[in-house]
Each structure stands twice: as structure tokens, then as C-alpha cells.
């Protein structure tokens, strides 16, 4: 096994570590750094649960190696809310619209929608829904996720009191 030293920031905090070359970024975030909000649900790049942002781009952390993230700025679900606990608009929209049930797929979905909106704060419903096509949710039937997208696109308010 070959080990490599990497340095990266996660949610703005610097980390350095020695990692095996074969360790995925997702496993590294969870096992070595304790960011267990990132979930691994298929580990073969289909379900999107493991999505994190790497230098602002949504990446499947099960398909990316930790060593590839050397020097990168990584964002996980733990870093979305403001320091005072105020939810990110994407988190708030999911909450307002019953966009999650078991919550296992949710961190990846939240990250994907966040990166879409960071790239283009005026992203359309269709653009966000297209980005969602890379995510599998077994619980919700996507109803609340679609309503959350509408809320984020400025159409319709959340339904939860």
C-alpha cells in the first residue's frame, strides 16, 4: 500500500493527513476526518448520495480518490448552514417542502443544488431538476424535492408550517 500526504480544506478548515492511494474521498471524509454527513449508498457512482463539492464543483466522493483532492477546497453538508445555525436556503427549502424522509440521500442532494445555485443564482427549475437526475431517493418519490426546487427558483413558497 502506498501512502501519500495530502492537504486540503473542508468547509473552510484546513486538514492534513496521510492516506492510502486507494482510499476514496468519501471514505476519507467519513473515516479519517469524521464528516459522517456524507453518505455512501452505492459506492459506484450512480446514486449521488456521496456528492460533495470540490473547488465548487459537485463530485461523487465515492469515485474520487482522497489523493486527488490534495490542495482542494472541499464542501460537505456539515458546512452548508451558517455559523449561527441558520440553514442554507437549499436546506431550508428541503425542510419547508418535506423534501426528505430518511435523510440518507439528502446530503448529496443538498450539495448538488447548492453548487447549481452558486454557479447560477438564477438557475431555472428545469436546470435544477436536470441536476437532480443524478440522484436516487427511495423514500420521497421526489415530490418534496421538486417543490423545494420550485421554491428555490422563486416559484411557490414552502408548504411546512
Amino acid at each position, binding site marked *: 500500500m502506498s501512502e501519500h500526504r495530502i492537504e486540503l480544506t473542508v468547509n473552510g478548515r484546513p486538514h492534513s493527513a496521510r492516506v492510502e492511494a486507494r482510499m476514496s474521498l468519501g471514505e476519507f471524509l467519513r473515516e479519517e476526518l469524521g464528516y459522517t454527513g456524507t453518505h455512501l*449508498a452505492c459506492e459506484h457512482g*450512480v*446514486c449521488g448520495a456521496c456528492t460533495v463539492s470540490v473547488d465548487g464543483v459537485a463530485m461523487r466522493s465515492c469515485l474520487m480518490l482522497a489523493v486527488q483532492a490534495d490542495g482542494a477546497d472541499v464542501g460537505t453538508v456539515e458546512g452548508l448552514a451558517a455559523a449561527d445555525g441558520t440553514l442554507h436556503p437549499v436546506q431550508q427549502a428541503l425542510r419547508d417542502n418535506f423534501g426528505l424522509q430518511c*435523510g440518507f440521500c439528502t446530503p448529496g442532494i*443538498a450539495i448538488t443544488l447548492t453548487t447549481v445555485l452558486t454557479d447560477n443564482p438564477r438557475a431555472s427549475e428545469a436546470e435544477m431538476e436536470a441536476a437532480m*437526475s443524478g440522484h436516487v431517493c*427511495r423514500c420521497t418519490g*421526489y415530490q418534496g424535492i421538486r417543490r423545494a426546487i420550485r421554491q428555490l427558483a422563486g416559484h411557490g413558497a414552502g408548504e411546512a408550517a
Partner: protein
Amino acid sequence: MNVQRSVGATRYVGQRTARKEDGRLLVGRGQFTDDVRLPGMLHVTYVRSAVARGRIVSIDTEAAREMPGVHAIYTQADLAALPVQMLSFFFAPIEAPVTLLADGRVACVGEPVAMVIAESRAQAEDAASLVEVTIEEEAPLVTIADARTGPLVHPGRDDNVAAEMGDEDALDAIQPLIDGAAHVVTQTVHHQRIAQSPMECRACVASPDGTGEMTVWMGCQSPHLAARYLSLALGLPAESIRVIAKDVGGGFGLKNIPWREEVAVVVAARLFGRPLKWIEDRFEALTASSHAREQEATLTAGFDAEGRLTAGWCDYACNNGAWPMGEDANIAVHMFMWPAYKLPAYGFITRGWYTNTMGLGAYRGPWAMETLLRETLLDKAARRLGISPVEIRRRNLVYLSDQPHTSTLGVEVNDITPGECLEKLVANVDIAGFRKEQKEARRQGRYLGLGFAAYIEPTGAAGTMAPMTGETAQLRIEPTGKVTAMLSTHSQGHGTATTMAQVIAEQLGVLYEDVSVFEGDSAIGAFGPGAAGSRQGVIAGGATWRASQLLAEKVKVVAAHLSNAGPDAVTISGGMVHVEGAPEMSRSLKEIAEIAYGEPGRLPEGMASGLEAQFRYQPPPVTMTSAAHCCMVEVDAETGFVKILRWISSEDCGTVINPGVVEGQIAGGLAQAIGQVLLEEMPYDARGNPLAATFKDYLMPAISDVPDFEYIHANTPAQTIGGMRGVGEGGAIIGPPTLVNAIADALSPFCEIEELTLPLTPARILDVIEQRDVSGTRDRANRDEAARARDEMAEAPPLASEVSAQGPQASIDGDWNMTLKAPMGGQSFLAHFEADGAELSGYLSAPDGRQDFSGGTFENGRMQFMVKVDNPMKVTLKYDLQAGADTITGKCKMGMFGTAKVTAVRV
């Protein structure tokens, strides 16, 4: 919205209250099993069989043991040090000889053969790949058809029938009725195998805490049920096992009970003496977690000239695989096929078959086939008779005005509303407009379809099967005035902390924000089976409802005493306690609580200090939910693709605590239904290999496959505390026929879907449009048929050898302890026999009564007699036993409930 309101309280029940669970799940602070890490914890991986059937010649672990980080490699020989009896969901012993790891033979691909314990999951996987398992491969039985004719899956059993109920002889009475009908319609469904696929795969962490204690974190549907299961399976005291499952990423029936891998982790942790963690990967989840559905069934129904049902017969078979989580012939399919319809006569034969495939587990609405068979048959019949799908249902449904109504199988219904749901649906959907559009579209070569379905569902079952019990709610108002609830509920996404907090806030008169709910831990609350059979809203909801009322009553008595008023003058709202006519006497709950805890001398004489209440709710045995759905589709005649245009649900789930949660349950079930009809399939090849090993092969519905669902809530409160009806499974039950009927309607200008084979892939839809075998489904069936015929000629299947006792006949007179092993649990009672020559009489006696019998026979040690039972249903039990000197063994035929094994020993 038609929600039952209680008087005077702040409205929480019926509101789309934001979920309590989201606070942690949205920020990545949930606690799923893989998030648990303990000091000294090691990781487990399984070596699995790549062969479907055969004898294990050797398991060579030498090279694997040398790998870095490896601590131990266990086979069944090692785990056998701790005896385990695997049980079904009903806590009945599994009949197939299932062990935690393969014991000498393998019976399906994916069966766990050895277990590697290492420092990391990666190291365990490295080592597992070096364990060499040599298996003498035998030709496997893959399909139900194979099972009917092939050799025994489990040597030593009589045949490959895993479970059987119903009565083939009853066809003699039904057939003339069908033959005499004006119209006879038959529907055959080949239902594919489903992988339940919760997004969180199975997971287990077991920590042996000293000699007598054990803490287990497990992805399960009820920590209470998991703890009870483990204690029974391992023969340990229940209090020595604590199961924690704070967050679970979906269950859908798969996680009903711990299965081989989870139990093996618990056993290995005890043997090895260190905490162990097993996290299943998706490949294992798809190919080696229990599967669901795979069924073949034919329903035939007769109709009179007006389209009224006259008689029905169903032949049903399901693939149980090698090691089902309980042998199952799915009696519920037949029990719940007809109570919502006026059908004068019905009979069935239903069997579960062992094969060399992964075992059968539960999946949302395990009996859903009844709705699929019936509702697709009704639409076929409507087309045949030239009446509308709504009209054929109107002529046959049991409306409220027809109730109470008892089905031919003895199921009584007195508050079901499928007809009323249908009327509400019809009133809200412009059917005439759609038909016009459909006609117009057809002229342009576009094929639109409209499908309807109606159903009822038994929810909230309690008191008739071992694990299906009531639920307990324990509440207290803390000295801070805030409320803590300790509940037996469990959420794998159900949002029980939210809905239960809404009930408490409303019934107690406190703020929703001031209610904390604790659940998901077998040390919290009391026994309850969690999410199983759409029951938590009904039963835990009722328990919480009443416990809140009890606690409110105590607060009122205390406040009245402090204010020198009557308890009736006291109201609680928004966390404040008011006394009618004395606004100056208003106090916060906190003030009252401080007195109740800190100054008990100020409480009424004899009252216990503190503010606590507990209630265990035992609801009626079952609570019925009803619904009618419709959907509209467009089928592309060129490509066979189906686009769902609209989907409307009209459902009666009684009191709705939180419409956001209720609609979420329906939508999740409907999405799974869409997957089942159009996308998902776990196929096997002829060598018994499961072929969908990744999410690229197993097609899960994505956002683009699922339309926006529309809801009409047509709710009538149930006769339960709070009036809730279960809603967890309904979407997955009514969804498939709704969509199939819409597709069939769209295809009607071409042809009828003669036999329904799921999923309806584009190729299978082109089969109907082009009237040729585009998908190859027929070709495959023909080839299988031919291969089977060859096999049958080549070798006759080994038949069970009849056991016949020879030698002198021993006396059987006297008392015996007799045990009946039925699919839904065992039963023990006292049997008394008296033989007068060849004439046998006696009685069977249990705490709930005694049945006498006479007119039996006793010849050559063979005892045959019949006993009539009225409870819970009328049935004649036919015993056929063989007596030895001190033991009796044999079988009891229980009418449509199948056959039970009987053993008896002398008292």
C-alpha cells in the same frame, strides 16, 4: 380536508408542521449505523458463495489469514459455538435448515460462507477475496417452474413446497359457478423479483459489554423487535441486549427482522469479545439481501350479464428462494382480495416454493398482488363487457351503505370507503374531457390512457400475531415545563417524532417546539414492532393521544387544587394553564411542574409527585384504509415508452396528523410502484446468478420518472383513539394496477395485454403494439418449457418416501402434550386420546377452551380425526398422525390455512 378536531386546543393535528427529524438530518448530524465508531472496533466482511447450489468441499482460509490487519476468519463451524435458532417475523422457527454461515452446502449465490474480521473494511475485503471456497456445483433450481419438478432444494424435506394454504378440492364447488357465468375473465401476472433497495444498505455494530450485556446498533425497523428477536434467537435474556437505531436510511420491509449477516455479527462479537461493525455494500444489498415479490398468479372471475361478480378462483405461487425470512404462501393475498367487493364465492390454492435463489423478504405491501390481480382483471372485464372501469367498480364495490359486510373468506368490514373514495375521485377528475382528448389524440397517432384502481388495506394490526402488538407512550412534563416523550416508535423516514409531537402538543396544550421525542432505542418506551404493516400512526398515535390526555388531566387536577377551583374550569394552551373566570390564577406549566416535582406537599392529598403519564394502546385488531387512484399516461407507439401525465390519489386514511408526512408516504409508495411497473427487476440466469449487481443494472426510479402527484383527502376517522388509519404501504399496493390499467387503456386500440409480465419495459409494450415477440418474453418461456420437458424425461424427481411405522401398535390412550407448528407461529395444548379398537375419540384442551372429537380412526399406529374450530374463523382441522410409543408426529390440515406439523409427547 376532513380532519377530526378536538375542541379548544391549538391546532397541530392536521397541520403541515415542519419535521423535527430534519434539524439533524439536513446538517449531516444524523446518526446512522455506519456513523457509530467504538474503541477497539473491528470490521467484518463476508465471503459469499458464487455458486447457486452444491456441496462445500473445502474452505481454505490460510492465505487470507496472512493478510495485514486480519484478526480472525470464522466459518459456520466456529459460529456454531453459540447456538442460534433463526426465526421469522412471527417469531416462528424458520423451517429451512438455515444457519448463519453456510453449513456444508450452499443453496444460493450470495449465501455467506465465511466471515473475515479485520482492522478496516478494506483490509477485510482484501482478505475475503483470498478465501478459497471449493464447491461441487449442482444444477440449481431458479424459477418456480423449476421448483415444481426439480430435485429438493433442502435435502430431507418432503418437497420444494415451502408453504401451502388453500384447498385445491374447493375448485370442484367454484368451477361450475365460473362455467355458468355470462362472462369469464382471466388475468395472469408474472411479477418480477424486486430488490427493496433502501438507500442505506444493511448495517450492524455489535458491542459485547461484559459477560451478560450487549449493545447493538442496527439498521432496523424497530429496535424493540430486533432486541426481542436477538434474545429469542440466541436464547439470551431480553434485558441483556439493547438495540439502538437512531437514524435508519429506509427499511421497506427488508429490515423487519435481523437476518443472517446481522445475527452473525452479534454472535461473532460475543465469541471474539470485541466490538464488530458490518456495513453491507450495494453489490451485496442487491444480490445478497433478501429479495421480494417474484410471483406467478392466475385469477379467474365470472361475471353475470350486467358485470356483477359471481365467483372467483386464484392459483398463486411465489418464489421463497432458498432461505426465506419465514416460509410464506402469502395467505393475505387471498384474505384481502375481495372484502371490498361483492363476490359470492371464492377459492384458491397458494404456495411458496423453495429455489436456489436469494430468500424472500418483505417489501412494502407484501400482499399487494391481490390488488394488482383484481384491479387489472376488472379493467379487462370492463373492456370485454363494454362498460367503463368506473361503472364495473360501482356495480361490485362494497359501499358504506352495504356495510357491515363479510367476505366469502370471513373478513368483516364495517367502515371501508373504497367506493366513496372512487366517487370523490370521479367528481374531481374530468373523465369526459379526457376521453375526448384521447379520441382526438388517437386520430393523430398518439395513445393516451386512463387507469383506475380501488383498494382497501388492513393497517394497524394488533393482537392477532406475536409481534403485532399495541404501543406504549410515556410522557412527562419536566420541571422546566417542557415535555419529554419516550415512545416505542421507529422512523426510517416516517417522521414519527414529528407526528407524535403534533399529537402531544395539541392534546396537552403545549407548544410543538416544547416537545422532545425520544425513540429508536429498545431501552426507550416498551415493546412495539415499529414500522411494519402501516401501524405507527394508528397505534402509537392513539397511545400518544390518550397519554397526553391523561397527563393533561393530572395538570388540571393540580392546577384546580392550587387555585381552589374545579378541574373542569382548567384549560391548558400554549404551555399556560388557565382557570376559567380567574385570569389572575393563570400559571405557566413550568410553575405547576416546579410544584409537582419540588413541593409535593402542595399537591392534592395522595397524589404522586411529578407530572408523568403512560398509556399502552391496544387498538381494534385491524383498522382499514381505503383509496381509489387514477392516472393518465401517453404511450409512444414507436418506442414503447410510457410517460405519466397525471396521477390523482383519493384516499381515506382517517385523521391526518400531518398532510406533508401522509402525502410523503403515499408518494414514496407510488414511486416504488412506478419502478415496479416500468423499471425495476432482479433477474437470474439459468445458473442461479442474480444479474442486477449495480444501480446501473437495477433501475431505480429517478426524478424524471415520477410525476407530481395530486391528492384528494377523503377522510373518515377510524374507530380508534384519534381516528388515524395506516398509510405507509398503500401507494405501493394501489400504484401498480393504476398504472398498468392506464397503459392497457392506451394500448386498447392495438390489443389486450394478454398476460401481464412485469416490468412493462418498452420492448414488452411493443409486444402488444406490434403483436410479435419483440421483448423475447414468449421465446424465453417456450425455451424454459422445452428444457423442463427434457429434464422431466431425463430424470424423475425424487419423491418423498412415505414414513410408515411398522410393528405392533402401541396404546395411545391418555394425555399428550401436543404442539402445532403453523406458518404464523406455534401452538401448544393438551391432547387426550381414547382408542376403542380402531375407533378414536378424545379432546384437545387449551386455556381458551376444549374441543371434543369422536369418529376418528386408529389403525397400524395411524390416527385420523377431525376437529371443528370456530375461533378466530370457522375451520375444520383434519389430523393425520403416526403414533410411536412415546411420541406422535404428523400433520394437520387447516382448511385454507394450509398444513401444520404436529408433534406430541406423553404427559
